[in-house]
């Protein structure tokens, strides 16, 4: 009896261990692909199908896809790249691609394309992608990643609110002066409580760097030295934080907290009439099945001479070397990359996850008949990513917010905010130079 039980245990163990390998056992070269649609995500099945379609078309390569939550993905990828255990193909961020390219952890995409052309094979048509995104993925004249997705920021406006005060789409502001006029008409107050705000430059995706770009300014100059030292820099920041100066700080705090408690985007909740947001807000409104009558427009400019530009980030598709030289795995990764970047698959991916994709032809197909997506796609032409600063990779995030938050709380003046931020960036640069 004991022998029977022992035999069964061994058999179960063998079967269990064999199952760990996965269903498919063949001679094909396995490619590891990391994406952002984990099990349980609404897009999981469709992304899995996209990978399956590739595998069914292949005799030589087999792609094994693994999905991670957005919030886990980046730390996992960073650690994996550091330990040469990154996937063969994976998403990363466009703005800091150059950091990885410079350090030699990525395969050179231009080399793959040149090899295709030399062999008379089909290769990717680079004209399908936004030049501004390709620029960020170019290191020493060669491409080290491809723009898998695109993002843009626009002004969302609530037409129901407009109609309520007798305004129409013709009244949508195009300059900051018009924005202020319209916004003040849309404000709604009940006693001391703010019920609705027309617009607030600090809400949603309204960023200081975005407003600076519109005025032809930036945080850093071409030599990556911090600026933030002109009267214009000061004026723009002042404009941002005093836009709703007729309300007290406690009124604005209470309004902001109420938005947080609702747990819904303030524009989606109808508490803000106009707000700068990414294409993600369109998806949010779709998910809520909102009956709100709204539209999107380019972000108003400082004045008629302002520059039409918005912050457009996105995911890059990169091929990780993991310490290896060019091999069959890398060639397979390139085949899969071409497949993922093709127009038809980009359409499928966009429909699965709701992202704007890097392939312009694909987005024309997705946007057909949808005025909001059409407008968002058109604005991608004016989207620019933030520059990568090696000594302060989070210059637009934590490095800036430590002072910006204090300014919004009334603890720092505009001048102090800019001075402190400038000192901090300079300190970081000095320290970085001392260690490199």
């Amino acid at each position: 009896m004991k022998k029977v039980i022992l035999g069964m245990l061994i058999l179960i163990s063998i079967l269990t261990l064999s199952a760990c390998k996965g269903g498919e056992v063949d001679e094909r070269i396995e490619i590891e692909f990391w994406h952002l649609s984990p099990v349980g995500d609404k897009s999981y099945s469709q992304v899995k199908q996209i990978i399956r379609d590739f595998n069914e078309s292949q005799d030589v390569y087999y792609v094994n896809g693994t999905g991670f939550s957005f919030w886990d993905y980046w730390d996992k990828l960073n650690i994996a790249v550091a330990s040469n255990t990154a996937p063969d193909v994976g998403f990363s961020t466009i703005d800091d691609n150059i950091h990885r390219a410079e350090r030699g952890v990525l395969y050179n995409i231009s080399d793959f394309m040149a090899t295709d052309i030399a062999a008379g094979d089909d290769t990717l048509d680079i004209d399908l992608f936004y030049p501004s995104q390709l620029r960020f993925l170019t290191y020493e004249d060669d491409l080290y990643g491809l723009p898998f997705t695109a993002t843009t920021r626009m002004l969302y406006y609530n037409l129901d609110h407009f109609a309520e005060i007798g305004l129409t789409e013709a009244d949508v502001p195009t300059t900051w002066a018009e924005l202020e006029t319209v916004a003040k008409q849309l404000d709604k107050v009940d006693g001391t409580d703010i019920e609705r705000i027309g617009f607030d430059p600090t809400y949603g995706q309204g960023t200081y760097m975005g407003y600076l770009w519109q005025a032809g300014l930036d945080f850093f100059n071409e030599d990556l030295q911090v600026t933030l030292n002109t009267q214009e820099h000061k004026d723009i920041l002042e404009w941002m934080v005093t836009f709703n100066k007729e309300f007290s700080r406690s009124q604005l705090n209470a309004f902001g907290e109420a938005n947080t408690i609702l747990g819904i985007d303030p524009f989606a909740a109808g508490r803000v009439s106009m707000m700068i947001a990414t294409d993600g807000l369109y998806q949010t409104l779709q998910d809520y099945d909102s009956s709100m009558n709204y539209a999107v427009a380019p972000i108003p400019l400082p004045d008629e001479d302002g520059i039409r530009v918005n912050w457009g980030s996105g995911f890059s598709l990169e091929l990780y070397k993991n310490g290896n030289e060019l091999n069959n795995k890398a060639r397979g990764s390139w085949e899969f990359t071409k497949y993922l970047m093709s127009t038809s698959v980009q359409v499928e991916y966009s429909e699965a996850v709701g992202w704007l994709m890097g392939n312009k032809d694909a987005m024309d197909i997705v946007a057909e008949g949808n005025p909001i997506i059409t407008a968002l796609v058109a604005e991608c032409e004016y989207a620019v990513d933030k520059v990568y600063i090696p000594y302060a990779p989070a210059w637009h995030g934590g490095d800036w917010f430590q002072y910006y938050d204090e300014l919004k709380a009334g603890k720092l003046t505009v001048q102090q905010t800019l001075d402190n931020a400038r000192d901090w960036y300079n300190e970081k640069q000095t320290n970085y130079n001392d260690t490199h």
Partner: protein
Amino acid sequence: METLKKTSTRKNAFKKLRSEEKKLGYVFASPWLIGLLTLGAFPILFSLYLSFTNYDMISKPDFIWLTNYRILLTNDSLFYKALFNTLYHVAISVPLGLVAGILLALLLNSKIKGMAIYRTIYYLPNVVSVVAMSLLWLWLFQPSFGIVNNLLSPIYEFLDMEPLLWYQSSDMSKMTLIIMGLWLVGGSMIIYLAQMQDIPTELYEAADIDGANGLQKIIKITLPLMTPSIFFNFIMGLIGGFQVFTTSYIMTQGGPGNSTYYYSYYLFDKMMVDNAMGMASAMAWILLVITLVITMVALSLNKYVFYLGDQT
């Protein structure tokens, strides 16, 4: 002569017993020791090496000697800010946690009906995830709509003052997180309670005969006999206090204005945001030295600890 022989045999037997106990001690500790040597020792020593390099998690590390340490100690304004925030947290949260834990344990040491339920309720927060707990307290401390300010509103009115902004104010944020941390005091309370129940009842009976009142019994009997667990919780609180991170990461993201930007948070950002693994490793070693020095100083308080078995 016979007595001397007997004493010597007893001594040898005692020595043998001690040696066997020692061996057994190592056997029981071996799983942890093997884990430390195989899984922990290399990363620990490697981080020491990395602290002398400019490793950015991608490129090959270059040896830069003590540059990371020099920069952190002499030219990094946020280093001292983060260190101050952490010391502030430790200096207030550790004693406060000790006092709250002892008071709770004294309350829950009474012999009233349903005490097991009370003890469970007070311990329950310790099994709740820190993330869930942080989000819950975020709501409770909401300045305009939170329960805390609603409960305090009569006091605000009486004092004619604005409601506290709690975690939204750089003046109050550290204190908010400390107050929130008291919710977990049930963990140390269990240890105090266990020790309290170990105190021989004869001591209280003798005190009763001598006419001692409740407070006198607590001061003269309970607290002195609880010093081993107080000391244990104090040391553990110190070590844990220097590693404070999660609540700030979830609730305040280090803000407002870096007021809750703790040392471990800065270390994390150095590694994950600035890609400065070498610098982060140096920070980890500096933290180790600070914790070690403070713990060693704290360990000198051991002479005030009363161990019940020692006097026999």
